[in-house]
């Protein structure tokens, strides 16, 4: 089996995540899709690490995880704030920029 298979998997997961961001309206689901994309990227890094034979890829993946954690914390806080003021978790309702 070729290590490239992991990359294909990663690409597909990433695509699915991207579609999810576009298609779903629930802010939490959108967020999970973003996480999916980050994870897909992580999978690539780990695979690259394996292909190249050093651990740099894994370190980057590690950093990605930390950043993803930060992002989740802040993002969810934002969702809570929005929910508190608008009683909705739909991203379509937060479209004030239009006006």
């Amino acid at each position, binding site marked *: 089996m070729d290590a490239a298979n992991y990359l294909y998997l990663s690409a597909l997961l990433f695509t699915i995540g*991207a*579609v999810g*961001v*576009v*298609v779903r*309206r629930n802010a939490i689901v*959108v967020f999970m899709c973003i996480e999916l994309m980050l994870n897909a990227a992580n999978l690539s890094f780990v695979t690259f690490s394996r292909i190249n034979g050093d651990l740099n890829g894994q370190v980057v993946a590690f950093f990605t995880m930390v950043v993803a954690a930060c992002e989740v914390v802040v993002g969810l806080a934002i969702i809570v704030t929005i929910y508190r003021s608008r009683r909705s978790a739909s*991203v*379509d309702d*937060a*479209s*004030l*920029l*239009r*006006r």
Partner: protein
Amino acid sequence: MMMNSTSIVYLIALPLAGAVILLLAGRRSDKWGHLLATALCASSFFVGLYQLSLMFNRPSQERPVSQKLFEWISVGTFKIDAGLLLDQLSICFVLLITGVGTLIHIYSISYMAHDPHRRRFFAFLNLFIAAMLLLVLGDSYLNLYVGWEGVGLASYLLIGFWNEKPAYATASKKAFVMNRIGDMGLSFAIMIAFATMGTVSFIGVQAAVEQTSTPVLTGIGIMLLVAAIGKSAQFPLQAWLGDAMAGPTPVSALIHAATMVTAGVYLITRSNFIFDAAPTAQLLVVIVGAITLMFGALIGTAKDDIKKALAASTMSQIGYMILCAGLGPVGYAFAIMHLLTHGFFKAGMFLGAGSVMHGMNDEVNMRKYGALRKAMPITFVTFGLGYLAILGIPPFAGFYSKDMIIETAFNAGGSKGIILGIVTLLGAGITAFYMTRVMILTFTGTPRWDEKAQPHESPWLMWLPMAVLAIGSATSGYLLSSNDSLVKWLSPLFESHEEHHELLPPIIVSALALVMVAIGVAIAFLKYSRREIDAVAPKNVSIFTRIAREDLMQDRLNEAVFMRPGQELTKTLVKTDAVIIDGAVRAVGRLTIATGLSLRRVQNGFVRSYAAFILMGALAMIVAIWVVVQ
């Protein structure tokens, strides 16, 4: 080399100073303004007399003097000095302008006494005198041009002096615009002269005529003729003169009879060297003169407005002068002579008309006059002297000058001479007819006055100038022609080729002219003296009378050919500008806005659609990479 003088400028400076002082001082000078203006004009006249005496004391070749004031315009080879030239020709004009001008100033003191803006009137009169003097004293065509437009301005201001009446305001505008058409001709002439000869001074152009081809000279000549036509109210730009009678009567006497309208004659005689070398242009001058002569005379027969009748007469008399000036070296002096005598008798008659109007509550309709001989004896006598002069009854002024013109016309040679001779004779007859008509309607017969009218003789300040002018009308002809004094005086200026054809001997011409005059007078007597005159102009008159009353349809023609199409063009262009040119500009703006609005839909505020665009962008980038990798 011409002699230099340092005193010519005072001729212009004195009246100019008067105009400036009166205009700037405003109401403060109401009390003494008219006196100052009159005094300055008179002093200018005395400066003129002084210059004349100086001239007499010099041999004829050294008589012209010049004065360079300062460098006016100098760009490359285009060098124009503010320079003045006083020669035998201009001194005639200077004396006419300042002399008649002073008389009319005096007359106006009384005539305008009740006008609240008398001071301004005198300021304008002084301005006119200054501009007119500049016109005749300028030593180049461009300096002349300044005076030329200056008198146009003064004429505009004075015609429109009572511009609270819309018709008068329109008349003044009409005069200015039609004059400007003529001025355009003068500027063309100057441009051609500079482009071909490299100079526009009289002396320079005269010297360059030799080296210049005939077509160019013809072109300059025709353009000068256009200028003369505009200023001197010749056919086809004569329509403004009748309307110009809207101005106060002294203005009509000074500007529209004695001086400004004769500027065209001055221009042609001044440019004799060009016309002598351009026969085609000269022929055109004669034709224009002949047409106008008849034109004015015909209009004169139909006018009931005394001033308009006199204006038509002026037009016709200037036609005589132009015609004569177009006949070349033999004619110039006679043209000037008629100009001078005309200046006297026509100014006198206009002042007389003013005096009549003064006594008749500013009524101008001759049909409402009648039998004023008794009420205004002095006016009658002075007007009558002018009348005899214009008819050409010996020994009054017109006899000398007009007969000379008729004679010169006959002597022009060939069929041209015969045609011109007949035209001038006919003109003399018609002149006699309409002037007699004026006399009869105004001074004889039964009174047809309005109830309120109380005819009375004018105060001495008014009749004195009239008397002086009447004396001039009576004697000037003899004085100027005895010993050929004027002809000799002017002869150094004109190249004379003494070739007398002598188609008819002078005595026969005079006799013919007198016969024509007698016929004209007789017809007028038969028509107007024998029966009652309607106080209202009869309506059921022949088509010819109606056309003559309408100034031979000239206004209609101008209106139909120039004014209406012009107004339509203006309206169309205004619309085009707003709809098409500005419309195109606005359309670009609208298109941009529409594009923006349609693109704005993309920015719908939904995060998800932005994400979709990011996704598409990523796709596009990958495609780009893929293409490159391929």
